[in-house]
Protein backbone atom coordinates (compact mmCIF):
# COMPACT_ATOMS: atom_id res chain seq x y z
CA UNK A 1 0.00 0.00 0.00
CA UNK A 2 1.15 3.53 -0.70
CA UNK A 3 1.62 6.03 2.13
CA UNK A 4 -1.54 7.81 1.03
CA UNK A 5 -3.58 4.62 1.28
CA UNK A 6 -2.00 3.84 4.64
CA UNK A 7 -3.29 7.15 5.99
CA UNK A 8 -6.86 6.07 5.26
CA UNK A 9 -6.94 3.09 7.62
CA UNK A 10 -8.18 3.47 11.21
CA UNK A 11 -4.62 3.95 12.48
CA UNK A 12 -3.80 6.36 9.64
CA UNK A 13 -6.92 8.42 10.37
CA UNK A 14 -5.90 8.59 14.02
CA UNK A 15 -2.42 9.83 13.10
CA UNK A 16 -4.01 12.56 10.98
CA UNK A 17 -6.42 13.50 13.78
CA UNK A 18 -3.51 13.77 16.21
CA UNK A 19 -1.29 15.84 13.91
CA UNK A 20 -4.07 18.21 12.84
CA UNK A 21 -5.23 18.48 16.47
CA UNK A 22 -1.77 19.44 17.72
CA UNK A 23 -1.27 21.98 14.91
CA UNK A 24 -4.70 23.51 15.64
CA UNK A 25 -3.81 23.68 19.34
CA UNK A 26 -0.56 25.48 18.43
CA UNK A 27 -2.62 27.88 16.33
CA UNK A 28 -4.77 28.55 19.41
CA UNK A 29 -1.62 29.35 21.40
CA UNK A 30 -0.52 31.89 18.75
CA UNK A 31 -4.07 33.27 18.51
CA UNK A 32 -4.23 33.73 22.27
CA UNK A 33 -0.82 35.40 22.39
CA UNK A 34 -2.07 37.89 19.80
CA UNK A 35 -5.33 38.46 21.67
CA UNK A 36 -3.57 39.15 24.93
CA UNK A 37 -1.94 42.25 23.39
CA UNK A 38 -5.39 43.78 24.04
CA UNK A 39 -4.30 44.07 27.66
CA UNK A 40 -1.36 46.34 26.78
CA UNK A 41 -2.23 49.67 28.49
CA UNK A 42 -2.39 51.60 25.23
CA UNK A 43 -6.12 51.51 24.39
CA UNK A 44 -5.74 48.69 21.88
CA UNK A 45 -2.94 50.18 19.75
CA UNK A 46 -0.66 47.13 20.07
CA UNK A 47 -3.56 44.83 19.19
CA UNK A 48 -4.53 46.90 16.14
CA UNK A 49 -0.94 47.08 14.93
CA UNK A 50 -0.62 43.30 15.33
CA UNK A 51 -3.83 42.74 13.35
CA UNK A 52 -2.61 45.18 10.68
CA UNK A 53 0.73 43.35 10.52
CA UNK A 54 -1.12 40.08 9.85
CA UNK A 55 -3.36 41.67 7.22
CA UNK A 56 -0.30 43.02 5.39
CA UNK A 57 1.37 39.62 5.14
CA UNK A 58 -0.34 39.17 1.75
CA UNK A 59 0.24 35.77 0.12
CA UNK A 60 1.80 34.34 3.33
CA UNK A 61 -1.44 35.08 5.15
CA UNK A 62 -3.49 33.42 2.43
CA UNK A 63 -1.28 30.30 2.53
CA UNK A 64 -1.67 30.20 6.31
CA UNK A 65 -5.43 30.57 6.02
CA UNK A 66 -5.69 27.77 3.47
CA UNK A 67 -3.53 25.48 5.62
CA UNK A 68 -5.69 26.27 8.66
CA UNK A 69 -8.92 25.58 6.78
CA UNK A 70 -7.54 22.25 5.50
CA UNK A 71 -6.36 21.24 8.99
CA UNK A 72 -9.67 22.21 10.52
CA UNK A 73 -11.85 20.48 7.94
CA UNK A 74 -9.73 17.32 7.92
CA UNK A 75 -9.84 17.16 11.72
CA UNK A 76 -13.61 17.66 11.75
CA UNK A 77 -14.23 15.24 8.86
CA UNK A 78 -12.27 12.40 10.50
CA UNK A 79 -13.87 13.08 13.89
CA UNK A 80 -17.37 12.91 12.42
CA UNK A 81 -16.57 9.75 10.45
CA UNK A 82 -15.17 8.04 13.59
CA UNK A 83 -18.39 8.89 15.40
CA UNK A 84 -20.51 7.61 12.54
CA UNK A 85 -18.56 4.33 12.52
CA UNK A 86 -19.64 3.49 16.06
CA UNK A 87 -23.13 2.40 15.14
CA UNK A 88 -21.80 0.25 12.31
CA UNK A 89 -19.30 -1.50 14.60
CA UNK A 90 -21.97 -2.20 17.26
CA UNK A 91 -25.42 -2.41 15.65
CA UNK A 92 -27.04 -3.73 18.84
CA UNK A 93 -26.01 -1.74 21.88
CA UNK A 94 -25.72 -2.89 25.48
CA UNK A 95 -28.79 -2.63 27.68
CA UNK A 96 -26.48 -2.08 30.65
CA UNK A 97 -23.15 -0.35 30.15
CA UNK A 98 -20.84 1.10 32.76
CA UNK A 99 -17.27 2.38 32.79
CA UNK A 100 -14.85 0.37 34.88
CA UNK A 101 -13.17 3.57 36.10
CA UNK A 102 -9.50 3.30 37.11
CA UNK A 103 -7.30 4.09 34.10
CA UNK A 104 -10.37 4.71 31.92
CA UNK A 105 -10.48 8.16 30.38
CA UNK A 106 -14.21 7.99 29.73
CA UNK A 107 -15.61 11.15 31.25
CA UNK A 108 -17.84 14.06 30.30
CA UNK A 109 -15.07 15.59 28.16
CA UNK A 110 -14.18 12.46 26.17
CA UNK A 111 -17.77 11.34 25.69
CA UNK A 112 -18.83 14.72 24.31
CA UNK A 113 -15.94 15.23 21.82
CA UNK A 114 -18.34 15.01 18.87
CA UNK A 115 -20.71 17.62 20.35
CA UNK A 116 -18.04 20.05 21.57
CA UNK A 117 -16.37 19.59 18.18
CA UNK A 118 -19.54 20.40 16.24
CA UNK A 119 -20.19 23.49 18.38
CA UNK A 120 -16.60 24.63 17.77
CA UNK A 121 -17.08 24.07 14.02
CA UNK A 122 -20.17 26.27 14.00
CA UNK A 123 -18.48 28.81 16.26
CA UNK A 124 -15.43 29.16 14.01
CA UNK A 125 -17.65 30.01 11.02
CA UNK A 126 -19.54 32.66 13.01
CA UNK A 127 -16.34 33.94 14.62
CA UNK A 128 -14.63 34.50 11.25
CA UNK A 129 -17.76 36.22 9.90
CA UNK A 130 -17.89 38.33 13.05
CA UNK A 131 -14.33 39.59 13.38
CA UNK A 132 -12.77 38.99 9.96
CA UNK A 133 -15.62 39.97 7.65
CA UNK A 134 -17.49 42.32 10.03
CA UNK A 135 -20.72 40.58 9.23
CA UNK A 136 -22.54 41.68 12.34
CA UNK A 137 -20.99 45.05 13.18
CA UNK A 138 -20.19 48.20 11.19
CA UNK A 139 -16.63 48.54 9.95
CA UNK A 140 -14.62 51.05 12.04
CA UNK A 141 -11.17 52.28 11.13
CA UNK A 142 -8.44 54.09 12.97
CA UNK A 143 -5.20 55.76 11.90
CA UNK A 144 -2.03 54.53 13.53
CA UNK A 145 1.56 55.28 12.48
CA UNK A 146 0.16 57.28 9.56
CA UNK A 147 -1.78 54.33 8.13
CA UNK A 148 -5.51 53.75 8.12
CA UNK A 149 -6.43 50.31 9.48
CA UNK A 150 -9.34 48.37 10.94
CA UNK A 151 -10.02 49.33 14.55
CA UNK A 152 -10.25 45.69 15.61
CA UNK A 153 -9.80 46.57 19.28
CA UNK A 154 -12.93 48.70 19.06
CA UNK A 155 -14.81 45.82 17.37
CA UNK A 156 -13.79 43.47 20.18
CA UNK A 157 -14.74 45.97 22.86
CA UNK A 158 -18.09 46.63 21.29
CA UNK A 159 -18.85 42.92 20.94
CA UNK A 160 -18.10 42.06 24.53
CA UNK A 161 -20.10 44.90 25.98
CA UNK A 162 -23.06 42.91 24.71
CA UNK A 163 -24.04 40.38 27.42
CA UNK A 164 -25.34 37.77 24.91
CA UNK A 165 -22.17 37.75 22.83
CA UNK A 166 -20.10 37.59 26.03
CA UNK A 167 -22.07 34.64 27.35
CA UNK A 168 -22.01 32.79 24.03
CA UNK A 169 -18.26 33.28 23.63
CA UNK A 170 -17.58 32.24 27.22
CA UNK A 171 -19.60 29.04 26.84
CA UNK A 172 -17.75 28.12 23.65
CA UNK A 173 -14.38 28.78 25.31
CA UNK A 174 -15.33 26.34 28.09
CA UNK A 175 -16.31 23.78 25.42
CA UNK A 176 -12.94 24.29 23.70
CA UNK A 177 -11.30 23.58 27.06
CA UNK A 178 -13.33 20.36 27.41
CA UNK A 179 -12.41 19.31 23.87
CA UNK A 180 -8.73 19.91 24.62
CA UNK A 181 -8.87 18.05 27.94
CA UNK A 182 -9.32 14.76 26.10
CA UNK A 183 -7.89 15.94 22.79
CA UNK A 184 -4.36 16.87 23.84
CA UNK A 185 -3.77 13.59 25.65
CA UNK A 186 -5.43 11.66 22.86
CA UNK A 187 -3.11 13.29 20.32
CA UNK A 188 -0.04 12.14 22.26
CA UNK A 189 -1.30 8.55 22.29
CA UNK A 190 -2.35 8.77 18.63
CA UNK A 191 1.16 9.85 17.68
CA UNK A 192 2.80 6.99 19.53
CA UNK A 193 3.66 8.12 23.07
CA UNK A 194 4.17 4.50 24.06
CA UNK A 195 5.77 4.68 27.50
CA UNK A 196 3.17 3.40 30.01
CA UNK A 197 4.87 5.35 32.78
CA UNK A 198 4.23 8.61 30.91
CA UNK A 199 0.51 8.21 30.18
CA UNK A 200 -0.59 9.72 33.51
CA UNK A 201 1.81 12.64 33.04
CA UNK A 202 0.61 13.25 29.48
CA UNK A 203 -3.00 13.29 30.66
CA UNK A 204 -2.13 15.90 33.29
CA UNK A 205 -0.30 17.98 30.67
CA UNK A 206 -3.45 17.82 28.53
CA UNK A 207 -5.57 19.12 31.40
CA UNK A 208 -3.13 21.97 32.09
CA UNK A 209 -3.01 22.99 28.41
CA UNK A 210 -6.83 22.88 28.27
CA UNK A 211 -7.24 25.02 31.38
CA UNK A 212 -4.60 27.58 30.34
CA UNK A 213 -6.01 28.04 26.83
CA UNK A 214 -9.65 28.16 27.94
CA UNK A 215 -8.85 30.58 30.77
CA UNK A 216 -6.74 32.78 28.49
CA UNK A 217 -9.52 33.10 25.94
CA UNK A 218 -12.14 33.58 28.68
CA UNK A 219 -10.35 36.48 30.37
CA UNK A 220 -10.86 38.82 27.40
CA UNK A 221 -14.67 38.81 27.05
CA UNK A 222 -15.26 38.60 30.79
CA UNK A 223 -12.84 41.41 31.58
CA UNK A 224 -14.26 43.72 28.92
CA UNK A 225 -17.83 43.00 29.99
CA UNK A 226 -17.25 43.45 33.72
CA UNK A 227 -14.94 46.42 33.28
CA UNK A 228 -17.33 48.13 30.88
CA UNK A 229 -14.61 48.40 28.22
CA UNK A 230 -10.92 47.85 27.73
Amino acid at each position, binding site marked *: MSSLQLLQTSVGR*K*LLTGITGILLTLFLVAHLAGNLTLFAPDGGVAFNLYADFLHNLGPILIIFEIVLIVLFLLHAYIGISIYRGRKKARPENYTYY*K*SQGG*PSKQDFASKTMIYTGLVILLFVVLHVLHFKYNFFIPHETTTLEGREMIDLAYHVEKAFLNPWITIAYSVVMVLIGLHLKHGVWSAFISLGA*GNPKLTALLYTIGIIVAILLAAGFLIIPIYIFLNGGL
Partner: protein
Amino acid sequence: MSTHENMTLHLKIWRQNGPDSKGHFEDHTMDEVNPHMSFLEMLDLLNERLMQNGKQPIEFDHDCREGICGSCNLVINGIPHGPEMRTAACQLHMRKFNDGETVTIEPWRAKAFPIIKDLVVDRDAFDRIQAAGGFVSTRTGSMVDANAIPISKEAADKSMDYAVCIGCGACVAACPNSSASLFTGAKIAQFAKLPQGAPERKRRVVAMVEQMEKEGFGDCSNYAECEAVCPVGISISAIAEMRKEYVKALF
Protein backbone atom coordinates in the same frame (compact mmCIF):
# COMPACT_ATOMS: atom_id res chain seq x y z
CA MET B 1 -20.52 -7.74 51.15
CA SER B 2 -21.41 -11.15 52.47
CA THR B 3 -18.61 -13.56 53.27
CA HIS B 4 -20.11 -16.77 54.64
CA GLU B 5 -23.88 -16.70 54.31
CA ASN B 6 -25.41 -18.11 51.14
CA MET B 7 -26.91 -15.42 48.94
CA THR B 8 -29.90 -14.89 46.71
CA LEU B 9 -29.32 -13.12 43.40
CA HIS B 10 -31.69 -11.84 40.76
CA LEU B 11 -30.14 -12.57 37.37
CA LYS B 12 -31.06 -10.91 34.10
CA ILE B 13 -29.43 -13.05 31.43
CA TRP B 14 -29.31 -12.50 27.67
CA ARG B 15 -30.82 -15.40 25.71
CA GLN B 16 -30.55 -15.61 21.95
CA ASN B 17 -31.16 -18.70 19.83
CA GLY B 18 -28.82 -17.93 16.98
CA PRO B 19 -26.90 -15.21 15.14
CA ASP B 20 -29.93 -13.92 13.30
CA SER B 21 -32.66 -14.42 15.87
CA LYS B 22 -33.83 -11.73 18.21
CA GLY B 23 -32.51 -11.92 21.75
CA HIS B 24 -34.12 -11.03 25.06
CA PHE B 25 -33.38 -10.90 28.76
CA GLU B 26 -34.52 -13.82 30.90
CA ASP B 27 -34.98 -13.41 34.65
CA HIS B 28 -33.80 -16.07 37.08
CA THR B 29 -33.77 -15.85 40.85
CA MET B 30 -30.84 -17.86 42.20
CA ASP B 31 -30.95 -18.83 45.86
CA GLU B 32 -28.36 -20.80 47.82
CA VAL B 33 -25.46 -19.10 46.03
CA ASN B 34 -22.27 -19.83 47.95
CA PRO B 35 -20.16 -16.64 48.16
CA HIS B 36 -16.99 -18.64 47.48
CA MET B 37 -18.24 -19.85 44.11
CA SER B 38 -16.76 -18.32 41.00
CA PHE B 39 -19.13 -16.52 38.68
CA LEU B 40 -18.98 -19.42 36.23
CA GLU B 41 -19.69 -21.96 38.98
CA MET B 42 -22.77 -19.96 39.84
CA LEU B 43 -23.84 -20.25 36.17
CA ASP B 44 -23.08 -24.00 36.27
CA LEU B 45 -25.43 -24.28 39.25
CA LEU B 46 -28.10 -22.33 37.42
CA ASN B 47 -27.73 -24.59 34.35
CA GLU B 48 -27.98 -27.70 36.53
CA ARG B 49 -31.22 -26.40 37.99
CA LEU B 50 -32.53 -25.46 34.54
CA MET B 51 -31.77 -28.92 33.17
CA GLN B 52 -33.41 -30.61 36.17
CA ASN B 53 -36.53 -28.69 35.26
CA GLY B 54 -36.28 -29.81 31.64
CA LYS B 55 -35.23 -26.39 30.38
CA GLN B 56 -32.45 -25.40 27.96
CA PRO B 57 -29.23 -24.50 29.79
CA ILE B 58 -27.63 -21.11 29.15
CA GLU B 59 -24.70 -21.29 26.74
CA PHE B 60 -21.53 -19.53 27.85
CA ASP B 61 -17.87 -19.87 26.89
CA HIS B 62 -15.33 -21.25 29.35
CA ASP B 63 -12.25 -23.41 29.35
CA CYS B 64 -9.37 -23.11 31.81
CA ARG B 65 -11.26 -21.26 34.54
CA GLU B 66 -7.99 -19.86 35.84
CA GLY B 67 -7.85 -16.61 33.94
CA ILE B 68 -5.37 -17.52 31.20
CA CYS B 69 -7.31 -18.96 28.28
CA GLY B 70 -9.40 -15.91 27.44
CA SER B 71 -12.57 -17.89 26.80
CA CYS B 72 -14.97 -16.28 29.23
CA ASN B 73 -16.79 -13.36 27.76
CA LEU B 74 -19.51 -12.03 30.02
CA VAL B 75 -20.53 -8.42 30.40
CA ILE B 76 -21.56 -8.39 34.05
CA ASN B 77 -23.51 -5.39 35.31
CA GLY B 78 -22.41 -3.43 32.26
CA ILE B 79 -18.67 -4.15 32.55
CA PRO B 80 -16.77 -6.84 30.58
CA HIS B 81 -15.57 -9.47 33.10
CA GLY B 82 -17.52 -7.70 35.84
CA PRO B 83 -16.75 -5.19 38.56
CA GLU B 84 -13.37 -6.56 39.72
CA MET B 85 -10.41 -4.98 37.92
CA ARG B 86 -7.73 -7.19 36.33
CA THR B 87 -9.91 -10.25 36.81
CA ALA B 88 -11.46 -12.49 34.18
CA ALA B 89 -15.08 -13.51 34.80
CA CYS B 90 -13.95 -17.04 35.74
CA GLN B 91 -11.85 -15.65 38.59
CA LEU B 92 -14.58 -13.34 39.84
CA HIS B 93 -16.14 -14.60 43.06
CA MET B 94 -19.71 -14.28 44.20
CA ARG B 95 -18.58 -12.61 47.45
CA LYS B 96 -18.08 -9.49 45.31
CA PHE B 97 -21.87 -9.25 45.02
CA ASN B 98 -24.46 -8.40 47.62
CA ASP B 99 -27.30 -10.58 48.83
CA GLY B 100 -30.46 -9.65 46.95
CA GLU B 101 -28.56 -7.82 44.18
CA THR B 102 -29.79 -7.78 40.58
CA VAL B 103 -27.00 -8.92 38.23
CA THR B 104 -27.21 -8.47 34.47
CA ILE B 105 -25.27 -10.70 32.10
CA GLU B 106 -24.84 -9.82 28.43
CA PRO B 107 -22.54 -11.15 25.71
CA TRP B 108 -19.74 -9.09 24.08
CA ARG B 109 -21.48 -6.80 21.63
CA ALA B 110 -19.69 -5.94 18.38
CA LYS B 111 -20.44 -6.51 14.72
CA ALA B 112 -17.12 -8.34 14.39
CA PHE B 113 -18.11 -10.71 17.23
CA PRO B 114 -21.44 -12.18 16.07
CA ILE B 115 -23.47 -13.99 18.72
CA ILE B 116 -23.57 -17.76 18.21
CA LYS B 117 -26.01 -18.54 21.01
CA ASP B 118 -26.96 -16.86 24.29
CA LEU B 119 -23.67 -15.55 25.75
CA VAL B 120 -21.33 -17.23 23.26
CA VAL B 121 -19.83 -15.04 20.53
CA ASP B 122 -17.64 -15.87 17.56
CA ARG B 123 -14.17 -14.38 18.09
CA ASP B 124 -12.52 -15.80 14.96
CA ALA B 125 -11.90 -12.20 13.86
CA PHE B 126 -9.06 -12.07 16.42
CA ASP B 127 -7.52 -15.23 14.97
CA ARG B 128 -7.59 -13.72 11.50
CA ILE B 129 -5.88 -10.53 12.73
CA GLN B 130 -3.24 -12.69 14.41
CA ALA B 131 -2.78 -14.81 11.28
CA ALA B 132 -2.33 -11.68 9.16
CA GLY B 133 1.01 -10.87 10.77
CA GLY B 134 1.25 -11.74 14.45
CA PHE B 135 4.15 -14.14 14.04
CA VAL B 136 7.85 -14.31 13.22
CA SER B 137 8.96 -16.14 10.08
CA THR B 138 11.92 -18.37 10.92
CA ARG B 139 13.85 -21.07 9.18
CA THR B 140 12.70 -24.54 10.02
CA GLY B 141 15.07 -27.10 11.42
CA SER B 142 16.62 -27.54 14.81
CA MET B 143 15.71 -25.04 17.48
CA VAL B 144 17.91 -21.97 17.95
CA ASP B 145 19.98 -21.91 21.13
CA ALA B 146 18.10 -20.16 23.93
CA ASN B 147 20.49 -17.22 24.34
CA ALA B 148 21.84 -17.03 20.80
CA ILE B 149 20.25 -13.61 20.36
CA PRO B 150 21.10 -11.31 23.26
CA ILE B 151 18.02 -9.47 24.54
CA SER B 152 18.14 -7.08 27.47
CA LYS B 153 15.98 -7.87 30.49
CA GLU B 154 14.26 -4.53 29.97
CA ALA B 155 13.27 -5.32 26.37
CA ALA B 156 12.13 -8.82 27.31
CA ASP B 157 9.98 -7.43 30.14
CA LYS B 158 8.39 -4.81 27.89
CA SER B 159 7.61 -7.43 25.28
CA MET B 160 6.12 -9.68 27.95
CA ASP B 161 3.88 -6.83 29.19
CA TYR B 162 2.14 -7.05 25.81
CA ALA B 163 2.53 -10.77 25.20
CA VAL B 164 0.36 -11.52 28.26
CA CYS B 165 -2.73 -10.70 26.17
CA ILE B 166 -5.09 -13.68 26.37
CA GLY B 167 -7.20 -12.51 23.43
CA CYS B 168 -10.48 -12.53 25.35
CA GLY B 169 -11.90 -9.50 23.54
CA ALA B 170 -12.95 -7.51 26.62
CA CYS B 171 -11.18 -4.48 25.08
CA VAL B 172 -13.54 -4.60 22.11
CA ALA B 173 -16.55 -5.24 24.35
CA ALA B 174 -15.80 -2.24 26.59
CA CYS B 175 -14.84 0.21 23.84
CA PRO B 176 -17.62 2.68 23.01
CA ASN B 177 -16.43 2.40 19.38
CA SER B 178 -15.93 -1.42 19.44
CA SER B 179 -12.30 -0.94 18.46
CA ALA B 180 -9.86 -3.88 18.53
CA SER B 181 -6.87 -1.55 18.89
CA LEU B 182 -5.70 -2.82 22.29
CA PHE B 183 -5.65 -6.46 21.13
CA THR B 184 -4.01 -5.68 17.78
CA GLY B 185 -1.64 -3.19 19.43
CA ALA B 186 -0.53 -5.74 22.04
CA LYS B 187 0.07 -8.41 19.38
CA ILE B 188 2.17 -5.95 17.37
CA ALA B 189 3.99 -4.38 20.32
CA GLN B 190 5.19 -7.72 21.70
CA PHE B 191 7.23 -8.20 18.50
CA ALA B 192 8.19 -4.54 18.17
CA LYS B 193 10.19 -4.79 21.39
CA LEU B 194 12.26 -7.81 20.31
CA PRO B 195 15.05 -8.15 17.70
CA GLN B 196 13.28 -11.17 16.19
CA GLY B 197 10.32 -8.96 15.32
CA ALA B 198 12.35 -6.29 13.53
CA PRO B 199 12.77 -7.69 9.98
CA GLU B 200 9.03 -8.00 9.38
CA ARG B 201 7.84 -5.02 11.41
CA LYS B 202 6.49 -2.91 8.53
CA ARG B 203 4.71 -5.77 6.80
CA ARG B 204 3.30 -6.95 10.14
CA VAL B 205 1.71 -3.69 11.27
CA VAL B 206 0.23 -2.91 7.86
CA ALA B 207 -1.25 -6.40 7.42
CA MET B 208 -2.70 -6.61 10.94
CA VAL B 209 -4.21 -3.12 10.83
CA GLU B 210 -5.70 -3.88 7.42
CA GLN B 211 -7.24 -7.12 8.73
CA MET B 212 -8.58 -5.34 11.85
CA GLU B 213 -10.31 -2.89 9.51
CA LYS B 214 -11.72 -5.67 7.29
CA GLU B 215 -13.27 -7.42 10.29
CA GLY B 216 -15.47 -4.39 10.99
CA PHE B 217 -14.03 -3.19 14.30
CA GLY B 218 -14.49 0.50 15.03
CA ASP B 219 -11.93 3.33 15.30
CA CYS B 220 -10.06 4.08 18.51
CA SER B 221 -10.82 7.31 20.38
CA ASN B 222 -8.27 6.78 23.16
CA TYR B 223 -10.92 6.35 25.85
CA ALA B 224 -8.62 3.81 27.58
CA GLU B 225 -11.69 1.88 28.72
CA CYS B 226 -9.93 -1.17 27.20
CA GLU B 227 -7.04 -0.84 29.65
CA ALA B 228 -9.50 -0.57 32.55
CA VAL B 229 -11.29 -3.83 31.72
CA CYS B 230 -8.29 -5.85 30.45
CA PRO B 231 -8.03 -8.88 32.79
CA VAL B 232 -4.24 -8.87 32.42
CA GLY B 233 -3.89 -5.08 32.64
CA ILE B 234 -2.40 -4.27 29.23
CA SER B 235 -1.74 -0.53 29.02
CA ILE B 236 -3.14 1.71 26.28
CA SER B 237 0.53 2.25 25.43
CA ALA B 238 0.13 -0.91 23.32
CA ILE B 239 -2.03 1.19 20.99
CA ALA B 240 0.57 3.97 20.94
CA GLU B 241 3.21 1.34 20.06
CA MET B 242 1.06 0.15 17.17
CA ARG B 243 0.87 3.72 15.86
CA LYS B 244 4.62 4.17 16.24
CA GLU B 245 5.16 1.01 14.20
CA TYR B 246 2.66 2.30 11.66
CA VAL B 247 4.54 5.59 11.27
CA LYS B 248 7.69 3.57 10.55
CA ALA B 249 5.77 1.70 7.86
CA LEU B 250 4.71 5.00 6.26
CA PHE B 251 8.26 5.86 5.24
